[in-house]
């Protein structure tokens, strides 16, 4: 199923922030690529510039050095769901097409289809405050998918949820992304989440962010359930190796 075309590639990317206190190197000489249909996670110590990488890929910032390329449209899923409380679920899901011009009948059909498919149809005219955390997260994903992105960038989208919800939501979201056959790049600081969702896990160093190690994840359970993935015999092994890699840095 996976082809070898890199959908996302970053080559020798560096980025510095400027403030009156001085210059901060956020990213230094960082390179990696993501293939079509692949699910890749970026893990690293907090504040290491993981989210900055996504902002670079989304075109919100320009790198100081290096080149990056993305084939196709980018969908960005933000920290927390960021549903707008004054819009109904359907209006929230249609925000992308609305911003990029005009909502076509096709956009409406896409969104309605996804709302039905992911059990949100009866809530289409409700406001976000009336939905549970997990449902809101699904709406946020539909909003991201409504613009037909080729690549999904996920910026710790589950970090605001409690542990229980977090498990089931990441299971949901992971399944939907695979069903829709999307290429995805997830930023997280949760090692278990990264292993259970991904084909590959890229471990980043602390600031300035560099690639420390890349792990190919191969679990002997079907990849479609995040919860089952955690029971795979290889899971603890991966966990320990990634954990060690992350903590070496801290010392």
């Amino acid at each position, binding site marked *: 199923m996976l082809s070898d075309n890199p959908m996302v590639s970053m080559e020798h990317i560096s980025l510095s922030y400027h403030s009156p206190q001085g210059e901060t190197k956020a990213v230094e000489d960082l390179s990696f690529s993501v293939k079509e249909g692949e699910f890749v996670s970026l893990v690293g110590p907090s504040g290491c510039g993981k989210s900055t990488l996504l902002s670079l890929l*989304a075109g*919100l910032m320009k790198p100081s050095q290096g080149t990056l390329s993305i084939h196709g449209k*980018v969908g*960005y899923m*933000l*920290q*927390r769901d*960021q549903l*707008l*409380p*004054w819009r109904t679920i359907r209006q929230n899901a249609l*925000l*992308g097409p*609305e*911003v*990029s011009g005009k909502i076509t009948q096709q956009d409406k059909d896409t969104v309605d289809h996804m709302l039905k498919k992911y059990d949100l149809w009866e809530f289409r005219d409700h*406001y*976000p*405050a009336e939905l549970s955390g997990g449902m809101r997260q699904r709406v946020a994903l539909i909003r991201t998918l409504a*613009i037909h992105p080729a690549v999904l960038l996920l910026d710790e989208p589950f970090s605001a949820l409690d542990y229980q919800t977090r498990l089931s939501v990441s299971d949901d979201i992971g399944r939907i992304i695979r069903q829709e056959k999307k290429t995805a790049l997830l930023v997280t600081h949760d090692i278990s989440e990264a292993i259970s969702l991904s084909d590959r896990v890229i471990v980043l160093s602390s600031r300035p962010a560099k690639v420390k190690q890349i792990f190919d994840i191969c679990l002997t359970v079907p990849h479609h359930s995040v919860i089952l993935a955690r029971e795979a015999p290889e899971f603890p092994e991966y966990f320990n190796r990634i954990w060690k890699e992350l903590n070496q840095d801290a010392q």
Partner: protein
Amino acid sequence: MPNKNIPSPAQAAYLRSLHHHRQMVRLCRYALFFCFFFLWEIAADLGWIDAFIFSSPSRMFQAFCTLLENGLLLHHLSVTIAETVVGFLLGTILGTLFAILFWWNRFLSEVSEPYLVVLGALPKTALAPIIIVWIGNNVTSIITVALLTSLVVTIMTVLEGFQQVDEEQIKLIRVFGGTKRQILTKIVLPQNIPCIMNALKVNVGLSFVGVIVGEFLVAKAGLGYLITYGSQVFKMDWVLLSVILLAILAAIFYQGVVILEKLVTKRRNY
């Protein structure tokens, strides 16, 4: 699960005491109101206070009936109401427009910040005589004074609301390739409707101050005119009646804005 229909004895007792408490508060409020006017009336009737200077509820009522019959009351009332409404709507709308301008252009906002702070602290009523000299002895002057009292406060509160919008929400529009204008219309403005409503509430009161001060000085019509005129010719019944009518008006306006706010923010979890 406790049964919702049949509360436990403890819950029932709690609800009873809560109800009792609320009733007492309401009762005391009414009692205070009636006692105040009753004592005022008695004091005037028995000559404890000079009714010519302090008036009395019955004299005010008589003045009310006379002024109502000859149509003067409605005239003065409607002038004050119209000036106030125009003043606070203009203040809120112009203030919001300025806030949008300053949000849009950060440089402009930084340059004007010290001036806004000084103008905000300045008692705007001090400008009233100047305005009247410049614009003339007319309604436009009064409305301008009312507008000035609320304008700067509105700019500052609304701009602060604009600047406090969550960066992540702005990012939401940016990752969809949205423009600054879309950030304004789809995030910043709807997010700040409660803030604008609060400005409206404050402006109702401020606008009354501006209008009354303006009417004191321009002196043609309105409750402010009635107050100055009344005090000059020692018709204290008119003066005190006007003050009480002003209090009632202010309360009605404030409630009106509260209702408007409820309508606008209904169901949405701001």
